[in-house]
């Protein structure tokens, strides 16, 4: 008997998914998160789940977990006192930042502060030139003095070493690390070349300082977790989810804690990708909408798309540019301030505005009657009949439809001089447009054609909006997965150990020979291998995939090209042009091509999860149509009669025509007029548009 466990530590709840390797059966558990020390809720939840299912901890082979620990530490500024050594003349780079306003018309701008204050940044005489030549040797005595001062006078726990052009020659940064660790062997040191040897000092150094800033608390957290698990008798492997959608071992996570940012949402996207493999839908949009935010990810050829940028700790709502930019491999997620708690109001131009401010779960929407009085998206969905008040969260919490209507009447309908249903529909549809816009804009940024894709919709609010969003995007099929409430926790079990990295380095294609190609990849491959080896992973099970960021010479944006094994330099141009044509509807230029970043993705073997996972235990045997309600139909502009199905009672093969609601504990799927769905053999609901509008 063996089992594996996925644990997703969220802001409010921690979700557990325990899978029996033999039967594929799934057991789930929810536990309140303990933000001060998340290891506590993991250990407590694990004990509870093992006891409930009668599982012996010795049978547990893997615990894969994702955590918001690092994200929260940066947002709440709870990291360590961190010092910085920086190339002489450049200590203000963190304050100068992008020299960019994130809003042109709003003059009251607020930017995120760097995590290392100016007085803890000390300059070191040294210089590496852009081509890797040494312009000035490193002043080793100054390094020793600076480190001593930072430790003795300022009590730093972590140090970031940030020198110019260290991607071209890391020797100065590494020498500074040696000196620091000779003086203070316990001082945690992060160098900018190891975090990500990427050209653009502000972003690289910000990433480096944040890595250092969260290292001590990540260490403490993993110490607690590992020792707690050992005490319980756990002998299997503990894995930590990274933002890139791969698993890291604890040693890797301790070295690069900045890579643990956003690991929870990434897991949801990976579960969507996994589901796509299961049902034969290689290209997908993953759409997850909860109480505060909606998150989207694009999946191409069964893989969630990645990028190397992420912005953390935005000062101004969701405005790009108001936070701190990280250069780490991340699942390419769209995040917008749209969720059940999004507050509806009339803005200063007398138009309806919904979000990004959210009532969250506390005080919550007006219909929760928990102190929230402002109209929210959830209130609109209640008023439209899409959420059945006495069936919310499996009937555990009764919603007050009267309070919802009152709030909408007061906050929206009277100000706009429309009826409440019209106001509620407006709130609902504004969110649909916001979500569709975010997908559309993002797809056009990266050249992703979503029209032949399917959408996977989950989260507390996602299934109520998915069909309308899909209609706007002309996406023909929407999948509502079974077990959507614990998608992230299950998603953690579907991914291999993985480490992705890159190095910046310019090379013109016309002069690149086979030796040059090998030389370009060599340092990146070396880094990936040595890190994985240090993390205790046998290299023979690891595959290395090569990718290049390429562009026309002088153009600002790169296209990523994956190199099949043994690709010769002669084929690179052709691969680039094919990728370019796929991304842009522009005639390729008669211009030279250059390589800007060399990327390696090292992957361990895929967990043998797919064949075994069978979460759908079959219908519960209850009455599929529990009741009938009145719901708002946008086509007629009026309320219509509509059946409410109990999702747990639907056998595979059932087909349902809209309008209909399909109720499950965590969410309600809204199927409109002219839409239909079928329950597939895995228990997923697969919806299409019967009216041929798409």
């Amino acid at each position, binding site marked *: 008997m063996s089992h594996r466990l996925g644990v997703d530590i969220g802001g409010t709840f921690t979700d557990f998914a325990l899978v029996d390797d033999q039967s594929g059966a799934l057991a789930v558990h929810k536990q309140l998160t303990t933000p001060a020390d998340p290891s506590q809720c993991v250990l407590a939840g694990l004990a509870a789940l093992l006891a409930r299912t009668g599982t012996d901890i010795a049978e547990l082979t893997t615990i894969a977990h994702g955590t918001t620990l690092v994200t929260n530490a940066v947002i709440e500024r709870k990291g360590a006192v961190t010092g910085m050594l920086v190339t002489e*003349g450049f200590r203000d780079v963190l304050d100068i930042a992008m020299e960019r306003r994130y809003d042109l018309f*709003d003059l009251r701008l607020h930017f995120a502060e760097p995590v290392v204050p100016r007085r803890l940044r000390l300059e070191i005489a040294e210089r590496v030139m852009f081509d890797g030549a040494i312009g000035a040797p490193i002043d080793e005595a100054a390094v020793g003095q600076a480190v001593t001062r930072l430790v003795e006078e300022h009590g730093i726990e972590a140090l970031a070493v940030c020198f110019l*052009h260290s991607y071209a020659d890391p020797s100065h940064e590494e020498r500074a690390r040696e000196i620091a660790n000779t003086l203070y062997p316990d001082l945690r040191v992060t160098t900018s070349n190891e975090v990500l040897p990427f050209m653009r000092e502000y972003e690289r150094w910000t990433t480096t300082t944040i890595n250092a800033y969260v290292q001590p608390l990540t260490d403490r957290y993993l110490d607690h977790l590992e020792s707690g698990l050992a005490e319980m008798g756990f002998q299997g492997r503990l894995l930590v989810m990274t933002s890139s959608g791969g698993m890291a071992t604890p040693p890797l996570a301790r070295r690069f804690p900045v890579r643990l940012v956003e690991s929870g949402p990434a897991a949801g996207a990976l579960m969507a990708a996994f589901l796509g493999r299961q049902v034969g839908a290689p290209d997908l949009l993953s759409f997850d909408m909860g109480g505060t935010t909606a998150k989207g990810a694009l999946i191409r050829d069964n893989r969630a798309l990645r990028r190397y940028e992420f912005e953390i700790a935005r000062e101004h709502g969701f405005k790009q540019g108001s936070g701190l930019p990280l250069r780490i491999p991340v699942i390419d997620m769209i995040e917008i301030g749209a969720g059940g708690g999004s507050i509806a109001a009339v803005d200063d131009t007398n138009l309806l505005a919904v979000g990004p401010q959210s009532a969250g779960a506390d005080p919550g929407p007006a219909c929760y009657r928990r102190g929230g009085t402002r109209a929210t998206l959830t209130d609109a969905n209640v008023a439209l009949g899409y959420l059945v008040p006495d069936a919310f969260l499996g009937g555990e919490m009764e919603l007050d439809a009267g309070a919802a209507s009152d709030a909408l009447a007061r906050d929206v309908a009277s100000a706009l001089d429309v009826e409440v249903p019209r106001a509620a529909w407006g709130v609902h549809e504004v969110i649909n447009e916001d979500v569709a816009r975010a997908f559309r804009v993002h797809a056009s940024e990266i050249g992703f054609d979503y029209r032949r894709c399917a959408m996977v919709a989950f989260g507390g609010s996602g299934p109520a909006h998915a069909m309308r969003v899909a*209609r706007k995007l002309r996406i023909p099929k929407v999948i509502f997965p079974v077990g959507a409430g614990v998608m992230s926790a299950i998603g953690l079990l579907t991914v291999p150990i993985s480490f992705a990295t890159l190095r910046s380095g310019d090379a013109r294609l016309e002069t690149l020979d086979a030796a040059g190609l090998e030389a370009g990849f060599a340092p990146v491959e070396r880094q990936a291998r040595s890190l994985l080896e240090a993390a205790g992973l046998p290299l023979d099970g690891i595959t290395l995939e090569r990718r290049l960021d390429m562009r026309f010479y*002088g153009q600002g944006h790169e296209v990523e090209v994956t190199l099949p094994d043994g690709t010769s330099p002669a084929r690179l141009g052709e691969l680039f042009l094919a990728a370019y044509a796929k991304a842009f509807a*522009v005639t390729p230029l008669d211009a030279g091509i250059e390589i800007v970043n060399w990327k390696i993705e090292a992957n361990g073997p895929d967990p043998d999860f797919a064949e075994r996972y069978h979460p759908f235990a079959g219908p519960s045997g209850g009455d599929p149509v529990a009741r009938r309600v009145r719901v708002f139909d946008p086509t007629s502009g009026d309320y219509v009669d509509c059946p409410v199905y109990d999702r747990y009672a639907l056998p595979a093969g059932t087909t349902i025509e809209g309008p209909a609601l399909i109720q499950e504990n965590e969410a309600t799927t809204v199927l409109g007029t002219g839409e239909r769905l079928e329950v597939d053999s895995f228990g997923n609901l697969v919806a299409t548009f019967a009216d041929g509008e798409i």
Partner: protein
Amino acid sequence: MTTFDPVSLKILWDRLVAVADELVLSLVRTSFSMNVREGYDLSCMIFDARGRLLTQGSYSVPSFTGTAPATIGHMLRAFPAETLRPGDIVITNDPWMGTGHLFDINVMRPIFRGERLVGFTMSVTHLPDIGGKGIASDCTEVYHEGLRLPVCKLRDDGVLNKMLLDLIRMNVRVPEQTIGDLMANVACNEVGGRAIIEFMEEYGLDEIESLADAVNDHAETAMRERIAEIPDGTYSNAISIEGPGKAIRLAACVTVTGSDVGIDFTGTDDPVRASINVPFCYTRAQSNYVIKCLTIPSLPNNEGAMRPITVTAPETCILNAQPPWPTGARHSVGHFVVPLLMGALAETLPDRVQADAAMMNVFSVQGRHRDGGEVTSLFFLAGGLGAMQGLAGRAVTPAPSNMTVVPTEIWESRTSMTIERRQILPGTGGDGRWRGGDGQEVVFRNDSGHLFEFALMGQRTEFPAQGFAGGGAGALRVYEVNGAVVNPKARIELAPGDQITMREAGGGGYGEARQREPDRVLRDVRDGVVSREAAEDIYGVVLSTDGKSIDEVATANLRAS
């Protein structure tokens, strides 16, 4: 005509803005021009079949606020709507018809649904090069500045005008990039046209004129409500800025009457024999920008929002320069419309205005990389922002236009020059209850082995950024070559091994320095941005001997004196 309730209007309007944003992003992604991809020196617009502006992409620099309706008007006079065919593309870079200088190409495409014209899209981007001397302050006529294209068809009924493309290719320094950017504009307009057709189909719209009217009327009403809150009156201001050889006076008079704003620039000096003259379209865009910032910053740009604003300037003045005055660097005067108008309105809108900013340092660089490749580009450096009531000016942040820093590592790789130092200059922001933003110092060394030419156009080298409401002025901008101060409007030849230092100006402060909370002054001193002496002399704050706390008694005494 269809009418729209507020709910539909919101949903449809949002979608149009999203379409325009989508155009912007696809353009940014395929563009070669650094100004476009790093600085969003571009704009995309959607018009109805009458040429009425519905919306503009959310990201674009202020110089494009409200210029497009005039541009499309010129285009439709040259090629009336009824003569246009699917597959036509109309372009111009005429400074007086477009956005004020030859670098900006305006690309318009009619949208046909079947055979019927339903609207237009337009994109404007800053091209990498347009021939001539480019942006240099020593041009004396527009003819020096590059190739001027009248309103013409780049594509006629689906057939590309090869002659026109050859003409452009022959006249610019980086033909692949320039043509590439031009074609990227064509492509983004195609995407936009498709998106508009889909939008009409999804919402069952046969035409978008009704929507244009509704959107514009709504924006006008919202704008008028807000303008009406400004007390009626006439508010004037005049400032001096640096011209070639002598100062230039800019004057403005803002008249608020009910829900209308009139802005007149009578009293402004004449054009000058340098490329800093401003076509009126640019003056109007900056004026619109100021009023929008001070009223409803979040309002999407369209014609209606600008209807309550009337801008006038005598045809003899530098803010309404006529052909053939050169205009390549029109921003270096035109950007001052913003502090000019902010200053005029400072007393009546004290909680909304922003003190003077340092203005951007835009300079062009021409030379050769160590590897032999030609380098020709515009670069930007920011000084400090002006402070506002309740908000310090941010250090090293551009205004009124926007940009993104060129990282040191990219600059060095691209030019083979070395940046020796890039640091904030503490204390260069104006003093005040809210401090002006500090400037920065950047030192470049020519390590390319070739001659490099820097064309300087810096402002705020004689007239600093003024503080408001008793706030102090920011420090001046200074350029030095090998340690000696040089003419800030000169074309500098930088020999191999030479150094050029740019010291960027500070922004103006807001409010009296002695009203600044002592705790903030203490933090300024600890962060090294205000000296202990300045804390006492200017802010009236005395620190304890160890510098770690405030000497409350001494501070109270000093401030009372």
